[in-house]
């Protein structure tokens, strides 16, 4: 049986004056799922995340969050946390004071609110008593996540949480989000970094000009996609090139010069043709050292679905 939905949106429309920010958006997010929201700038991601946080109410459509219909602003149920447009931090307070003030605002005792624990989870223990006016963007993002964690959310809404994170910070944040999801918390995050979305999300929704152009599992996105470019590194590049040229459905992209690596072979294919090429390479005794898409399936789909057709450009 499928997990119950944490978010169920149907036909959500939101306008700001003459500007249609969201136009009939449907969205399903299951409990315990990390759901990615991607789209070009101005596509309506932040507006949608704002609706999920209760900052506004849709002009039309139905929105249910954690089983509760949301019909007016700031009326989302308990258990929803997160941020849009960056975390809200007060620079005159230390990291710990920011969290303590937030805990006190919600009626918790700053000593028992788990502030040390959430600071440790996001890797900010060492700077807990520093004022946040000296924090980098990545540190601010992590502190924003810590503030959301304080509420023990059932639905976490994050607007570009990976912005400004170094590799270690990114790993830490990914670990936190994955752990939360495993414990049943649903996470909706927007990002322009496709590698983050692919690494974290089981499902993704792509929005463009206020409309959903794709929503579903990442695997489905790859399958629905057009041919992709793959890079192959083998033990015998000339033989591999010959076999690729002979395999139906495979076209060799002759840009090794551009990539400055003569041993590298780039082919364009659908997944079944690529499978056939791998079988033939192995059969011919050519060892396959590396096989990876040049552009991730998500990024390729994103570009294909959101960029205007050639004729329109």
């Amino acid at each position: 049986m499928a997990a119950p939905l944490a978010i169920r949106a149907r036909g959500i429309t939101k306008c700001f004056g003459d500007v249609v920010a969201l136009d009939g958006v449907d969205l399903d997010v299951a409990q315990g799922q990390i759901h990615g929201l991607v789209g070009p700038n101005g596509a309506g991601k932040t507006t949608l995340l704002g609706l999920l946080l209760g900052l506004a109410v849709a002009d039309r459509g139905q929105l249910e969050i954690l089983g509760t219909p949301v019909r007016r602003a700031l009326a989302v149920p308990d258990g929803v946390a997160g941020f849009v447009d960056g975390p809200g931090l007060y620079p005159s307070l230390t990291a710990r004071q920011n969290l303590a003030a937030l805990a006190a605002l919600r009626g918790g005792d700053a000593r028992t609110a788990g502030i040390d624990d959430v600071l440790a989870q996001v890797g900010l223990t060492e700077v807990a008593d520093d004022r946040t006016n000296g924090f980098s963007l990545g540190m601010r993002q992590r502190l924003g996540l810590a503030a959301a964690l304080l509420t023990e959310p059932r639905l976490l809404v994050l607007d570009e949480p990976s912005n400004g994170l170094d590799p270690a910070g990114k790993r830490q944040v990914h670990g936190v989000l994955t752990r939360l999801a495993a414990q049943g918390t649903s996470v909706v995050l927007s990002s322009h970094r496709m590698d983050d979305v692919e690494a974290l999300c089981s499902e993704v929704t792509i929005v463009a000009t206020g409309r959903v152009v794709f929503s579903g599992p990442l695997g489905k996105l790859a399958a629905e996609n057009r041919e992709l470019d793959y890079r192959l590194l083998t033990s015998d590049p000339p033989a591999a090139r010959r076999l690729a040229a002979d395999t139906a459905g495979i076209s060799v992209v002759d840009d090794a010069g551009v990539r400055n690596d003569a041993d590298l072979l780039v082919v364009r294919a659908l997944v079944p043709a690529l499978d056939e090429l791998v079988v033939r390479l192995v059969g011919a005794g050519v060892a396959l050292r590396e096989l990876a898409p040049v552009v991730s399936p998500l990024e390729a789909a994103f570009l294909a679905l959101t960029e205007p057709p050639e004729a329109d450009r």
Partner: protein
Amino acid sequence: MTATAAPAPAARRVPVSRGYRFELVKLVSQWRIRLLVVACWVAPGLFVAAVSQQSSLPVDTLFGRWMHATGWAGPLVMLGFAGTWALPLLTSMVAGDVFAAEDRLGTWRHLLVAVRSPRRIFVAKALASLTVILLLVAGLAGSSAAGGVVAVGNQPLVGLDGHLLTPADAAGRVLLAWVCALAPTLALAAIGLLGSVALGRSPMGLLLPALVALALQLAQMLPLPVAVRLALPGYAFIAWNGLFTSPAQLGPLLIGVVVSLVWAGTATALAYLLFLRRDFTSLTSGISGRRAVTAGVLPLAGLLAATVAVVAAASGATGSGIEQDKVQRSLATAFAHLYRLQTGQLNRPDVTEAQLQAVAACTKGGGQVAGRGPGNDWRCVISWHLPGLDATGTAIYQLDITADGRFVADGDGPKEVNGYFLVRTPVGDAPNPLWQFDGNVDLLPSPKG
């Protein structure tokens, strides 16, 4: 079809008390606010104590000439300064920034998600800024009073009509004067809230209370009709002077306080309505200049017109309020009180004001112009009687009367009475209380008409 999750409990809104604490924490954590608190609780005391030890006193400021005589003059000098500069600037820095700071930091959405009620956010912010402003005002008053009493002593204070207030009476009236000054301070604070809500991160929002206060001060310098003068929300910064006459000139003070409180209430209500209408989700969030004008400026302009009409109708005040008979009465009263003071200094037999029967005859512009209105061309001749003597004493004063009714009487002789700044007393030379003194003309019509 996938089922939705079991309904979660509705999120509770954060009580105002917690929001208030949160706002206080944010305000007090700012170094600027901490600096202001320390400055307001320390600097006035040091200033008053230091000035009280100087040979030259700030005689241009009301009660400044009495700073050597009593510690209770210091907090009144400070109140005069505060009403002109300090309180408008303090309200600018606190109330004028309390909403704009969230715009600057980009924390509105965070705050809304945490509190879930714009109404409660507004109330919490308004209360927190009010608390800080009260703390600052209390510092100014308490520190200057402490500085004065410690440096000079707990002596009687000479009122604006020359009568002596006992130290306890002086202390009570000083406290009352500062409490009355809270009303226009609240009006400026409310204008600050309105500016902060309407203008967001624009520096104009921060400066609005100071600019409004400056405009009000400029207006008070103009020869405006009394009804307009009293209907301005800053008039209580001047009208507290009336507490230091006997009987107290309570009419202008009460009108000034009520007008200020009406302004405070109206500006706060406008700020509240404007804040509730704000759309925090739009990326171009903020309030348009057009809406700020229609929802902020126009209602306040209407309020000013209405208060002018009400004050004019209720008080029956016309013209400048400065008329010959009132000037004469006020000067003669002050002279009689101060004559008794001088008599005491000179160790002469005491006389009462009733025995003196002091009267003043004043002309303006050498008698060439009508005896009304402000100006430095008033000339008065005071005559009085001493018990047991047939001769009538006379003394001449030049008066500089400002548009708000305050005057400085400058003695022009005879030298033994008011022509020299010192008098020779049995214990040495002392300041002559009749040489120069401050006074106040009640701008409202007297009960006798």
